[in-house]
C-alpha cells in the first residue's frame, strides 16, 4: 500500500504538513466564542499583552459553534468554547466536545453552582433575570415570585420575549427543577394568558414597551437594564428610568441567575494556554473589568459589584447547579410549546 502511494500525492501531503507545523509554532489559543467580539475582544487583547499568547477568535451563535465543534471532531482547531449561558456549556459537555480542566485556586473562589461538578466548565460572569416593574403603576408589595405572575391580577400586564430565547428556556428549566413539570405547565398556561401582547423582540424591547405603557411588568436580564441606564440614547435612558428591579422568590429558592462561561475543548492542542486564559478571565482585574463593561455581576462573590447594579440591592440567588438548566432544556421547550408560549 505504502509503496504504491503516488509520489505527487506524498509531496503535496508533506508540504501541507510543513505549513501546518508553521501555524502551530507560535504560542496561541484558539477560541470559539458565543460572546460577541465587542464584549470580549479587549480583554483577550490584554491577555495577549500580558502573556504573549496570541488569541485567535471566531464568534458566532452558541448552538452553531457547538455544532461546528462536533462536526470538526478530534481535529477541531478550537481550544476553548465560550458561551453566554450554562445550558449550552452543559450541552457541549454532553456532546463530548469538552474536557476536564483543573483550576484549584479558581475553583475555591467560585460558588459550586457556577461550575460543572466534574470540572468541564467554569462560569465567568453572572446575570440575573428579575421582574422589572413600572414605578407608580405597580406596588412592589404586590409582587412576590415568578409563580405569582400567573395570577389573574396580572391579566394583560406582562411583557416577555419569545420562548425561542434561551434565557426564557433556562428560567422555565429552573422552575421545573424546583416544582416539577406538571405544576410549571399549569403555571405557564396562566402566565401566557397574562401576556399584554404576543412575545416579540428582545429583552430591551420588553423594557421599552413597559416604559411606554403597553404593560406593567417586564422580564429581562439585568445587563440589558444596566446598558439602557448608561446608554447614549436619551430615549433608552428615559425608558430604563421608569422601571425598578424586583428580586423575586426571595422567600424561597431565590432569583433565577445564569452565567457566561468557558470550557476547554476535547480536541484542544493548546490546552495549557486555554487553561491560562480561563484563569486570567477569573482574576481580580478581569472580573472587575468584564462585569463593569458588560453590566454583569462578577462571578466571584469577593469582587465588588458595579454601582449601578449595586443600587438594585442585594438579593438571594437560586443556587440550583446550572448544569440542570441544560439537562431540563428540551423539557422546558416542550412545556412552553404545550402552553402556547410563542
Amino acid at each position: 500500500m505504502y509503496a504504491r502511494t503516488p509520489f505527487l500525492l506524498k509531496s503535496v501531503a508533506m508540504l501541507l504538513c510543513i505549513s501546518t507545523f508553521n501555524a502551530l509554532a507560535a504560542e496561541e489559543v484558539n477560541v470559539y466564542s458565543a460572546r460577541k467580539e465587542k464584549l470580549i475582544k479587549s480583554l483577550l487583547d490584554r491577555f495577549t499583552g500580558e502573556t504573549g499568547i496570541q488569541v485567535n477568535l471566531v464568534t458566532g451563535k452558541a448552538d452553531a459553534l457547538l455544532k461546528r465543534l462536533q462536526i470538526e471532531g478530534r481535529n477541531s482547531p478550537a481550544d476553548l468554547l465560550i458561551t453566554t449561558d450554562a445550558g449550552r456549556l452543559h450541552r457541549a459537555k454532553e456532546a463530548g466536545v469538552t474536557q476536564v480542566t483543573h483550576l484549584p485556586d479558581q475553583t475555591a473562589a467560585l460558588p459550586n453552582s457556577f461550575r460543572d461538578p466534574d470540572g468541564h466548565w467554569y462560569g465567568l460572569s453572572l446575570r440575573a433575570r428579575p421582574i422589572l416593574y413600572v414605578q407608580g403603576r405597580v406596588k412592589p408589595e404586590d409582587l412576590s415570585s415568578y409563580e405569582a405572575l400567573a395570577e389573574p391580577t396580572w391579566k394583560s400586564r406582562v411583557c416577555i420575549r419569545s420562548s425561542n430565547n434561551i434565557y426564557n428556556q433556562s428560567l422555565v428549566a429552573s422552575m421545573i427543577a424546583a416544582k416539577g413539570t406538571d405544576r410549571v405547565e399549569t403555571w405557564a398556561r396562566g402566565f401566557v394568558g397574562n401576556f399584554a401582547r404576543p412575545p416579540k423582540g428582545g429583552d430591551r424591547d420588553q423594557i421599552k414597551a413597559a416604559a411606554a405603557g403597553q404593560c406593567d411588568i417586564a422580564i429581562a436580564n439585568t445587563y440589558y437594564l444596566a446598558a439602557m441606564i448608561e446608554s447614549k440614547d436619551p430615549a433608552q435612558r428615559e425608558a430604563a428610568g421608569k422601571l425598578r428591579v424586583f428580586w423575586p422568590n426571595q422567600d424561597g429558592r431565590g432569583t433565577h441567575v445564569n452565567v457566561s462561561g468557558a470550557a476547554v475543548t476535547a480536541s484542544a492542542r493548546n490546552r495549557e494556554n486555554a487553561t491560562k486564559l480561563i484563569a486570567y478571565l477569573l482574576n481580580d482585574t478581569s472580573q472587575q473589568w468584564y462585569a463593569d463593561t458588560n453590566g454583569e455581576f462578577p462571578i466571584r462573590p469577593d469582587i465588588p459589584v458595579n454601582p449601578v447594579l449595586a443600587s438594585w440591592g442585594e438579593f438571594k440567588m437560586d443556587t440550583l447547579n446550572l448544569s440542570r438548566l441544560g439537562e431540563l432544556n428540551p423539557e422546558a421547550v416542550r412545556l412552553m410549546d404545550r402552553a402556547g408560549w410563542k
Partner: protein
Amino acid sequence: MHKAPGPSVWRFGVVSTAVILAVPVTVILSYLLVPAGEVWQHLAATVLQDYVINSLLLMLGVTAGVLVFGVGAAWLTSMCRFPGAGFFEWSLLLPMAMPAYIIAYTYTGLFDFAGPLQTTIRGLTGWRFGDYWFPEIRSLEGAALMLSLVLFPYVYLLARAAFLSQSLCVLDVSRTLGNGPWRTFFTVALPLARPAIVAGLSLALMETLADYGTVQYFGVSTFTTGIFRTWFGLGSTAAAAQLSAVLLMFVFVLVFLERSSRRKARYHHTSQRHQDLRRYQLSGWRSNTALLFCFSILFFGFLLPAGQLLVWAGTTAEGQLDSRFLNLVWNSLGLAGTASLLALMLALFLGYGKRLNGNRPVRVAVRVAGMGYAVPGTVIAVGVMIPFAAIDNGVDAWMRLQFGISTGLLLSGTLVALVFAYLVRFLAVSLQTVEAGLAKVRPSMDEVARSMGATAAETVRRVHFPMLKGSLMTALLLVFVDVLKELPATLLLRPFNFSTLAVRAYELASDERLADASHASLTIVAAGILPVILLSYSIAHSRHVQTT
C-alpha cells in the same frame, strides 16, 4: 478554431458539477432516513400547524407585494414617460442592498408602540395603550411587507429586462388591434415576460423561506424559526433536518407547479424586426400616480430605513469606525467579488449544459444544485461543514497511518469552505438569471449562425454574448449584493480572526444595540450602491445592442 466538446463530455461535466454543488442539500435530505422518534408527535400536536400556516401566509403576502411593486415599477420605468422615470430606473434597485433584518429593526425603531411616532401621537392626544388602533409592524403582515420591500427588486430587475427586450412589433400589433396600454400590458407584455417574472418571484420566495432574522425578531413562528427551535431547543438534529427537508419540498412543489403550468409554451420573439421602444407619455393624474407609486416604494424600501440608520449613526452610535473597519470592508468586497464571479461561471456552465444537452438527468441535477437558496444559511453551512470535515478527517487519518503525522483540518474553517457555501446558497440566483437570458436566444439563431459558417465559439461570442450581456451583469451583481448581506453561513464557517460587515452589523444588532450597528449596515448599503448603479446602466444599455 475551437472544437466544441462532445455531448457526453458536457453532460458528464455538468452532472458532476451539479452533484458536487448538491451535496450539502443532499446531506440535509439524508436526515429523512434518521428516525426522529416522538419529536414529530410533539410538533404535530403543538406548533407544526402554526409553522405551516404562517410560512404559507408569509409566502402569499410576499408574492403579492413583490409582484405589485416589482412588475408595476418595471412596467412604468421601462414603458412609460413621466417625470423622474430615469431616476427611478436605477434608484428602485437600492432596497436590494438593505438586509431584511436591518430594515425590520429600523421599522420597529420607528413605528413600534414605544417608538417615536406612536409616542408622539400619545403625547399629543393623551391616549394610552388600547385607546387607539395602529398597524402592528411586528406581525405576519409586517414581516411580509419588510420582505417585499427588500425582495421586490428581483422581480423588478428581471421583469424590466424582459419588458425592455420585448419586440416593439409585438406591442405594435397589439396596439393596431385596438388594445389600450392596460390591455396590451395584461394580454401581451405580461404573458411574454412571464418566465422572467416567475424567475424573480421564485428567488424572492426562496429567500422568504430562508429568512430567519426578520421573522424571529417579529415573533412570527415559521418553518425557519421552527427548525432552529427543534434543533437547539429540543435538541433533535434529525427532526430539525426533516423540517428543512419539508421546506425543500415546498420549493419542489412551487417549481413543479410553475413548470407544469407553462408546459410546452415557448417565449421567444419570432419577429425579425426590432425597433426602439416607443414609450407611453403619461400626463396629468396618470403621471402623478406613477410618480407617487415609484416614490413610495423607494421611500419605504430605502430612504426611510437608510435615513433612520443615518440618524442613529450620527447621534447615538458609539465609535465603530476604527482601523479594523476598513479591514471588514475589504473582506466583504473580496468575498462578494470572488463568489459572484465563480457563481456566474458555474451558472453559465450549467445553463449551457442544460441548453445543449437538456436530458432528464442534467435537468434534475441542475435543479437540485439551485435548491440551496431556499434553505436557511445555518442549515446550508452545516450541510457544507459535514462533508468538508469528513474529507479533512479522512485525509488526516490517512496521513497518520502513512507518515504518523496529523494534518488537522485543511479546508474546514477556511475561506474555501465559505466560498463553496456561498456558491451552494446563491447559485440559484445566477442560474435563474442566466437561464432567463438564454431563453431569449432563439434556437433558430444558433442554427442561422452555424449555417452561415460561424463556429460554436463564434456563435457564442457574436450572437449569444451581446444578447446575454445584460443577464450576465445582473447575475454577477445580484450575487455580489447577496454575499455582501449574507450572515449565517459567514458566521459559522469563517476562519479565526476573520470578519465581515454583515457579521459586525449582526453582532451589534443582535445584542440589541441597533444604533451601534448603523455604521456597518450603512456601509453594506453603500458598498451595494455602486454595483446597483452599474447594474441599472448595463440593463438600460443592453437593449441597444439588439436593435437592428
